């Protein structure tokens, strides 16, 4: 099936009343996740997985995907109005967006961010459609090539997450270790289960993610007194003609940049938005005004993070490699529904793959409509004090963890990983690599052992595959070459090092 035929099939799936409803619900919940500080997209998506248990696979994935890209829209609102990013990739928007709010131009900032996000998001989805034929290439991959691909994915994730590669690699290996708990993927013998029946199927990834990101965040916030949130008044929602003119090129540059960086596994949404900000400042005729409420400082980064969020689905759909923690959560949701993301998804379940892609077009339109007129309603949610919000988040996390297997064991697992996540934050170990490798670990081990079984234990099999050698070579390059420091996004890495969520 060609891409156009696939997309038509996708729209026929996505436009059913049921799937439209779930896309809308996902957009609303995603915007809310983005709006509410203290609940990032990874924890937010994991938290809402239990709501999809009774849904058909396509509807479930459509809703969860919408939560992710919806959160990118929502994060802007808090950045502009209260100078607190709802999620990490909107942090840079605080610089000029908040100043615009102080100058009485909050409405224009939010509107231009919504328009930019729509353009970036929609073009990102078009890229996903264009990339679909890549799956034909990926179908040639055997266990040897998959090991190479996963090693490259892991090194990219570790090389680009956080400020220290050593710590990011430690986080990645921690995730791989967690992935070894349970029945071993080749022989089925139990490992690290300590006679606990609940661990035979492995550690529940939903509990781990909710613990690391959700409970860990609540514990971190509990260190400080919870202060009431002060918001600026919304005035003048529509941007002026000059605003639109000034934002035109930043939106186009943000789209290209976010899309390109979103393709790279491990590159965070904050890297895209911060790099976009740096580029806009460098290209501006009045760089000295950046930081005083310049609309280009909002348009570029907000476009970039949405293009990034949509492009991040490309490695997942074409190769089965999640590019970020939130996409890894989505990959877990695919697997819970008996679907394996990657080239075979287009072959075996084209309705699901294309249905989800088509729903993203629709979702981006929904978000544009939701964000502009309903911004006043989102602001109301900001007035919920954190002392109330944290309790509601905790209740949903307890419910979410229990619902996975109807077991209190998962509540304790979540709690344990909440403490681990809190401690990892304290010593600056990024969380995202651990989540990615927790999902990928069993697949990686399975393919590694299958490859070595094919060669009867001879590691030389990896040298015989040119594709695998190229992938290993690239992985080595990422590990040893500090040359990335010369690229513009290396600066963004130091800004966005704390982005553990995306």
């Amino acid at each position: 099936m060609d891409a156009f035929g696939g997309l038509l099939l996708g729209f026929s799936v996505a436009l059913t009343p049921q799937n439209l409803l779930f896309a809308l619900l996902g957009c609303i919940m995603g915007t809310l996740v983005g709006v509410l500080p203290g609940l990032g997209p990874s924890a937010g998506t994991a938290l809402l997985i239990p709501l999809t248990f009774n849904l058909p696979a396509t509807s479930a994935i459509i809703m969860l995907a919408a939560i992710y890209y919806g959160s990118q829209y929502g994060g802007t609102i808090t950045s502009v109005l209260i100078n607190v990013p709802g999620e990490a990739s909107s942090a840079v928007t605080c610089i000029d967006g908040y100043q615009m709010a102080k100058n009485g131009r909050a409405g224009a900032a939010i509107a231009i961010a919504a328009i930019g996000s729509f353009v970036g998001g929609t073009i990102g989805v078009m890229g996903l459609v264009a990339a679909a034929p890549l799956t034909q290439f990926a179908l040639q991959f055997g266990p040897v090539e998959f090991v190479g691909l996963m090693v490259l994915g892991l090194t990219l994730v570790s090389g680009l997450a956080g400020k220290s590669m050593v710590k990011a690699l430690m986080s990645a290996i921690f995730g791989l270790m967690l992935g070894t708990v349970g029945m071993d993927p080749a022989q089925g013998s139990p490992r690290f289960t300590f006679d606990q029946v609940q661990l035979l199927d492995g550690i529940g990834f939903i509990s781990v993610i909710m613990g690391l990101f959700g409970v860990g965040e609540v514990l971190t916030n509990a260190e400080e007194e919870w202060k009431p949130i002060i918001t600026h008044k919304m005035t003048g929602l529509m941007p002026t003609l000059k605003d639109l003119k000034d934002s035109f090129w930043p939106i186009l540059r943000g789209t290209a940049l976010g899309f390109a960086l979103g393709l790279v596994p491990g590159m965070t949404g904050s890297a895209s938005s911060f790099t976009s900000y740096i580029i806009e400042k460098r290209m501006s005729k009045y760089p000295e005004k950046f930081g005083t409420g310049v609309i280009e400082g909002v348009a570029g980064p907000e476009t970039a993070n949405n293009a990034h969020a949509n492009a991040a689905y490309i490695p997942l759909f074409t190769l089965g490699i999640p590019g970020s923690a939130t996409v890894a959560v989505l990959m877990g949701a695919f697997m819970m529904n008996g679907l394996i993301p990657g080239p075979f998804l287009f072959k075996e379940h084209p309705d699901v793959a294309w249905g989800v892609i088509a729903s993203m077009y629709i979702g981006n339109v929904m978000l544009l409509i939701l964000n502009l007129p309903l911004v006043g309603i989102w602001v109301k949610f900001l007035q919920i004090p954190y002392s109330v919000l944290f309790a509601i988040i905790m209740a949903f996390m307890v419910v979410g963890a229990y619902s996975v297997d109807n077991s209190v064991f998962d509540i304790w697992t979540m709690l344990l990983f909440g403490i681990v996540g809190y401690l990892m934050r304290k010593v600056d170990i990024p969380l995202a690599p651990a989540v990615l490798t927790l999902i990928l670990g069993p697949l990686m081990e399975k393919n590694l052992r299958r490859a070595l079984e094919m060669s009867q234990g001879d590691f030389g099999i990896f040298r015989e595959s040119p594709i695998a050698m190229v992938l290993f070579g690239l992985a080595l390059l990422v590990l040893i070459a500090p040359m990335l420091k010369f690229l513009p996004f290396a600066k963004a890495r130091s800004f966005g090092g704390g982005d553990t969520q995306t």
Partner: protein
Amino acid sequence: MTRVHQVASLIIIVFSVWVMYMAHQYTYWTALGPGPGFFPFWLGVFMAVLSAIWFVQLMMKPLEGKAIEFLPSRAGIVRILAIIISVFLVGLFMEDVGFSVIMFVFMLFLLIGLGRVNPVVTLVIALTCSFGLYWLFTNYLDVPFPESSIGFLKNLGF
């Protein structure tokens, strides 16, 4: 602050050695190739090496600048411990007391005990997040939350 990070790296080294030891209990190699112990063993090795590198990095270049304190304020520690213990107790008592009752008590504790939230608001949120969620999940999402095994609570339908 540097000392805290060094202690963390040493704890991770100990953990890695434990992983290697545990992996050693499983078959390392079979006639077909790697066994169940192969992958975790090497993960333990890599983790130990990385932790050692981190330790050495800290020795060579101690953390600079105004690093945040590792331990929060006394009030912060109390709040953190209260959240941890309360979630643990929810898990411990959920199957005996029942989902609705334990969640109601949990929410009262979080909202009034920690959040100092207005009692009326607390009551509304606590009822929604306990009995409301029970109703939603059992009726519409097919998640059978535990009911109380305590006589009088069970008779009341909790």
